[in-house]
């Protein structure tokens, strides 16, 4: 059985709403400490343990979104955790936006295309 496709979302979008519980997403963030990442997305790494964490490095997380315990913020249950430290964030953002604007032109109604909000300063 193949898992559901994971659409790319930026971290601020994961928190703010367009992403629903149970969705598969792919996102990028900096590893803050072993139990959380910045922008308050907690990443559950049970599926990818053991992995060699580099604190402060940027990681791509692919996984399902769940409600975090305690009710605030969201949690990502990571199926894939890749270290991509050194990635050119500006280019990545441009690439994602290029893809989204193309899908928008096509007239697809994808959740992320509709809510590509103005991002805050990069991580």
């Amino acid at each position, binding site marked *: 059985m193949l898992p559901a496709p*994971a659409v790319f979302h930026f971290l601020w979008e994961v928190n703010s709403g367009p992403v629903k519980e149970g969705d598969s997403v792919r996102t990028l963030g900096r590893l803050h400490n072993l139990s959380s990442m910045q922008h308050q997305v907690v990443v559950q790494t049970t599926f990818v343990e053991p992995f060699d964490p580099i604190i402060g490095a940027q990681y791509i997380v692919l996984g399902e979104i769940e409600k975090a315990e305690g009710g605030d913020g969201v949690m990502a249950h990571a199926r*894939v955790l890749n270290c991509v*430290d*050194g*990635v050119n964030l500006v280019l990545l953002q441009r*690439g994602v936006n*290029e893809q989204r604007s*193309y899908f928008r032109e*096509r007239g697809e109604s994808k959740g992320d295309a509709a809510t590509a909000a103005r991002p805050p300063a990069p991580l």
Partner: protein
Amino acid sequence: MQPEATEPEEDSVWEEPPSMLWGLDPMFNAFNRLYVKDILHMRESCQVSGIYFYNSHPIFKVDVLRTVVYKREREDFFCHGVDDGTGVINSLCWKDEQWREQGDPAILWARSFGSSAREDFNPASELKKLRQAQHSSSHLEIGELLRVRGPVKTSRQQREIMASTYYKVSDPVMAVQISWMMEVPQLYRHSAQNIQGGSASYLLGRATRILKDFLKEKEVTRFRPYDIQDLLQPLVSRQPQKTASEQEPEAGPSSGPPTSFKQLRELLQKCLQILQDEGLVFRKVKCQDEVYHVTERDKDLLMAVRDILREDCRREKYAEKGCHILHVLSSVRQRYSRNVSKAALELVLKALECNSDIISTSDSHYTIL
């Protein structure tokens, strides 16, 4: 780039181009970089199984760069599920036999060279390193990036890519993925522009056929363009949906009249030009009022040609051999209409000959009976 939601309705009216023309489409022979979503939703051809259609381009090979999210290993092959954010698809990657066994004759052969080879080059160990490199590039774990190229197959109701080439891509700072993300929309837009070329000639062929059939069935003698333009309306009303990326999105065939009307006019003009070039129709008088005469039904033209032949064949010059077609053409142009083309005259002469009014004495000479 029509939305997928309208596909089921389109299916019943959209006709595949004939398989003989598929080779003319450059996308047919290329490994197409498509989103997984499009690969999964491509329509399979009714003419040949194994060929799929994306936006009326025939496709059978694809090229994908995706993250592995699922892996299944068997003795002979790997099955990787790959995800690009728009969908997940299986790729079947056959294992290369070379790295598998230990007692490889090539390694034994290399070892036999070991003693006589130079000290700094050991064929056996070099070959072993090569095998290991091959092994590591073909063994992937979940989370790694895979590049696959190969034909698309449908097996057990599921689409999969049968990999003819596959390898692991090392992309530590996502440079390869980012450049892919930037490139693929451009490729899609480029192919959407090209769609005008390929399907346009096919559309034109259909439109001309429709007009010819109509003129024949209804035994039309004369017409004006607006009399027949409604016949082409159904062909044009499908077009705006296919090229929505280049125009504002339209709700349906009846909306956006300026654009579809313009296309209709253009299509009609092209068809009329083709019919004129073939001689099926001609304009007796070129003026503001566009009236087209259907050649074979124009009694006056037939009579004029017959009269020309009757008169000229009495003259000594033409009595024996008959009149050359070009001579008849210039006479017709002087007497009847300047706009009769050679193709039209040929049709008239053929019709007269079928009626046994005239007879051809040679390839291009005619005489009256």
